[in-house]
């Protein structure tokens, strides 16, 4: 059922990065929760020669709530998010996404960095993180760099992570006063389902206008992405139903969904428009 592979289990971050750096000609993959990777290996979509298990690397754990920024380790599980009152307060959209993420066993094992690195267009944690302006710390044995999550995805299942790099931390600035941060997962059932259309919205209001708008969509393009065309319609404006309609239409017209077994492209576009309108309206009504 599984093709054989070597497994390293380092206990330090340096050890993990060193193991990833010494690939030679082999395919070396890091594995944390493995909730996607094991399925892919079983289906022979991935054929690693060697895997680097991250389960013992405690440096990849931990949440920090600084005065300016919030930072979580890459190995933070989806269930860890759900157990954190600070996350619930600071990033309600992330909690909503985590609440509907897979099933309980997947939530207990699957990690935030893994969800990002899997590159799935349906990755549920990514839309909320995009609307929070999240930044990734990418470390390799030779260097550490930071990269905006917005710049991370290059194309369908293609990302900016080099094979010898790990996403060690994910961080984002605290939301300004008077902000709303929401996520809606539309799926074919409530529990343990792949997203048909995911919409995250973060809106901040100052002096009666929308000072900052972030809208990110899942499952309606080759990658999870922000719809900056729609955000631009809203920013700097006192929102009206007409403006919100315009933003919703911009979101629908700039997304590029496909037909698949879960829904048609047309239905996805329709729901992007309806849900963008709904989430922006609810946020504005609450804040303004």
């Amino acid at each position, binding site marked *: *059922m599984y093709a054989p592979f070597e497994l390293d289990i380092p206990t330090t971050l340096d050890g993990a990065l060193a193991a990833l750096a010494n690939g030679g000609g082999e395919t070396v993959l890091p594995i944390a929760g493995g909730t996607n990777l094991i399925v892919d290996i079983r289906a022979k979509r991935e054929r690693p020669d060697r895997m680097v298990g991250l389960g013992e690397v405690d440096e990849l754990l931990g949440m920090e709530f600084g005065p300016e920024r919030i930072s979580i380790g890459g190995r933070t599980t989806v269930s860890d998010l759900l157990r954190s009152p600070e996350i619930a307060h600071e990033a309600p959209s992330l909690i909503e996404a985590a609440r509907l993420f897979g*099933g309980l066993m997947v939530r207990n094992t699957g990690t935030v960095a893994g969800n990002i690195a899997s590159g799935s267009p349906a990755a549920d944690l990514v839309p909320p993180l995009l609307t929070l302006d999240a930044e990734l710390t990418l470390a390799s044995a030779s260097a550490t760099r930071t990269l905006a999550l917005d710049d991370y995805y290059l194309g369908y299942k293609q990302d900016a992570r080099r094979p010898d790099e790990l996403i060690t931390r994910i961080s984002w600035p605290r939301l300004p006063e008077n902000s709303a941060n929401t996520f809606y997962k*539309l799926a*074919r*059932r*409530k*529990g*343990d*389902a*792949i997203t*048909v*259309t995911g919409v995250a919205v973060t809106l901040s209001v100052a002096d009666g206008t929308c000072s900052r708008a972030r809208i990110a969509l899942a499952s309606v393009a080759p990658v999870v992405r922000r719809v900056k065309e729609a955000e631009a319609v809203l920013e700097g404006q006192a929102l009206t139903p007409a403006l919100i309609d315009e933003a919703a239409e911009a979101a629908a017209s700039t997304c590029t969904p496909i037909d698949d*077994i879960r*829904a*048609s492209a047309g*239905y996805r576009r*329709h*729901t992007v428009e*309806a*849900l963008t309108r*709904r989430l922006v309206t609810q946020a504005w009504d609450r804040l303004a």
Partner: protein
Amino acid sequence: MTHTDMDPGTLANVQFRQVGKPLTRTDAPGKVTGRTPYAGDYVMPNMLHMRVLRADIASARLVRLDVSKARALTGVACVLTADDLADRTAATDIPGQTGQKRLDTDQPILVRDRVRYFGEPLALIAAETRDIADHAAELIEFELEPIPGVYDTLEALKPGAPLVYGRDNIVAERKIRKGDVEAGFARADLIVENTYRTPFQEHAFLEPEVGLAWVDENDVVNIRVSTQVIEHFRPIADALGVPHNKVRVRGALVGGGFGGKEDLTVEVYLALLAKQTGRPVRLEYSREDSFVGHGKRHPFILTYRTGVTKEGKITALDVNMIADAGAYVFLSPYVILYALVAAPGPYRVDNLNVFAKAVATNNMYTSAFRGFGALQACAAYEQQMDEIANTLSIDRLKLRRRNFLKTGEPMSTGFVPPSAIWTEQCAEKAWAGLGEPTASDGPIRTGRGLACYQQSYGRLTFLHDTSEAWVGVEMDGTVVVRSGVTDIGAGQISALGQIAVEVLGVTLDNVVIYNSDSAVTPLAGTTTATRALYMTGNAAKQAAEGLRARLAERAAQEFGVTPDEIDMAFNEVFVIDRPEKTMPLVDLVRTCAAEGIHRSELAIFRAPFGDFLDPETGQGQAHPDYAYGAHAVEVSVDVETGEVEVLKSVAAHDVGQCINPAAVEGQIQGGAQNGQGYALSEEMLYEEGRLVTPSFSEYLMPTAMDMPNVECIILESRSGVGPFGAKGIGEPAMTAVAPAIANAVADAIGVRVFEMPITPERVVTALQQRDAS
């Protein structure tokens, strides 16, 4: 939540000590603690592991099949192809027990030259490990030359359509011609015609098909297997070409059946390789194997044309049904017979035409699934009732009341069901059980739906069904029950125990039940067709009563009274109203043993034996009896996204007599879930016959987060033909759920989605089409 409602008229004079109580099922402790071995838990020394290689195209000619590299692989014990088999087929018709002559359309055990469905088995592999068997499968080279297939029943009926087999694609046709339909339509004030579509459905039992086979010292092929039907030992023997007494099927507690383990699954493959290798062989399907390894629920297209008066009285009904039988004929001729008989539902329709047809396609073959055609009919007739009510602007419950079949009235086939028909009571209680309506809120609209049903329990009477059970009492007063019945998770064997101890006056902790061994337990027939309690329950009751009569006679002699003055309860034997005349059961049993009085009884229960329905009119007795009930739901629908949430789900069923209310509630809860998935989210998608939803990440059953609390209202008419007046609840629990949901969705949004599952996209499309028109 459970309420039990009893009819005051039948309540008097019935006092049970064990029956009717929510006792802990005898199978519960082992399951809860994990001690219960399922078929997949059995292993043997020197055991081989099997794998089935399957075709990856739905319609093709097998041009080349080369297994030489697989056979040469170290660790491979055996690879079988059709060329290695005698030209035999495996039975697909009428499972188990009956001497009924089979159709001549049985599936070849392995593909010889023609592939008719995606996943049809090409070769069997047995190896030292599963990994080696998997590797061997990769080494088998085969070439399939595609042949144009047909994947839609309406296409398959057109002239010139590709033929799946035979002269045309029609597998079976059945009809009812009753009364004068033309005159009935002439009397109608209104004629309502609609077409409803129902989908494939996967049984999705927790435990995929699994078994272990070995040949014993008597040359008997033993098969330990997860099955609903141990009496498949006969067709297995036929497939092997050995006498029937050379195959022994031993069941185990089954991790779910729902009709999907009613046909043969892994048995013949196991038996062939055990015979061939002389070693024990084990085969366990992966989930993906299971999706292509057993037949599905028949999709139906049902056209209902109903004539009604202004007041809502049905004057005529004309029904046309087309069922997708898939690539081989399994139980399709009987599934459409059930649909035919159920066509008008629990309503009095004197002018009735029904035409039902099963059509071959190159889709996955279809066969038994909880509800067995009658459920598909209910999906249509109950949506049609709401469409009629809306057209006439009559209250939906009122319309149904005007037409309900009443106790003592003839049903579609002219047969008068012998039991009480409590549809109206059930409908009223289910509807009232919804309580206060939930208000709509912006784009979230709420609505309610009701569906009533008629569902048979017990097999077709022309099958001349029988069931046996043995009950004995040990020297210490404990009780043993033996019966071949398989327990597929609903508490079938525990119910037998509860019945036996009720009759013998002992408590449930004093009984052990041995079941499901075709060689040593008395043959009890299939656990299908909502028949296990009815048939084997009656057999166990008869056996226990026979034993009790002998014990009572000896006790009467002891006490100097007549046997009818003796009662037995709580492990004591006593004279009624004479508290001083009592003795422990164990003392009586010892006396009997010392005197050579027979301490056991083997009984056979015979269902009513009948003939086929009249082929022209469809009149006659199809089943022993019918169960009636209703399901009501409240839903909310998001009119922007099309998402449906079931807010309330209320079931009301007349079960005749509960043997164990907790087990009855379990069936009702499961039926509510099974029906909700069928209505809303479960979808088997095929592309040119290839299944593109072959796992639980694509095939979406409702989870705990999708299910509301299901309220169970149990009514007891004590009128059924099962033990103590019981009816059956296995299939009935599911039948009305999906149409109730469909009716609630239509009520919420003012437009009907005529095809299940009612996906969010279909809801949005229906709303857009309405707005456009």
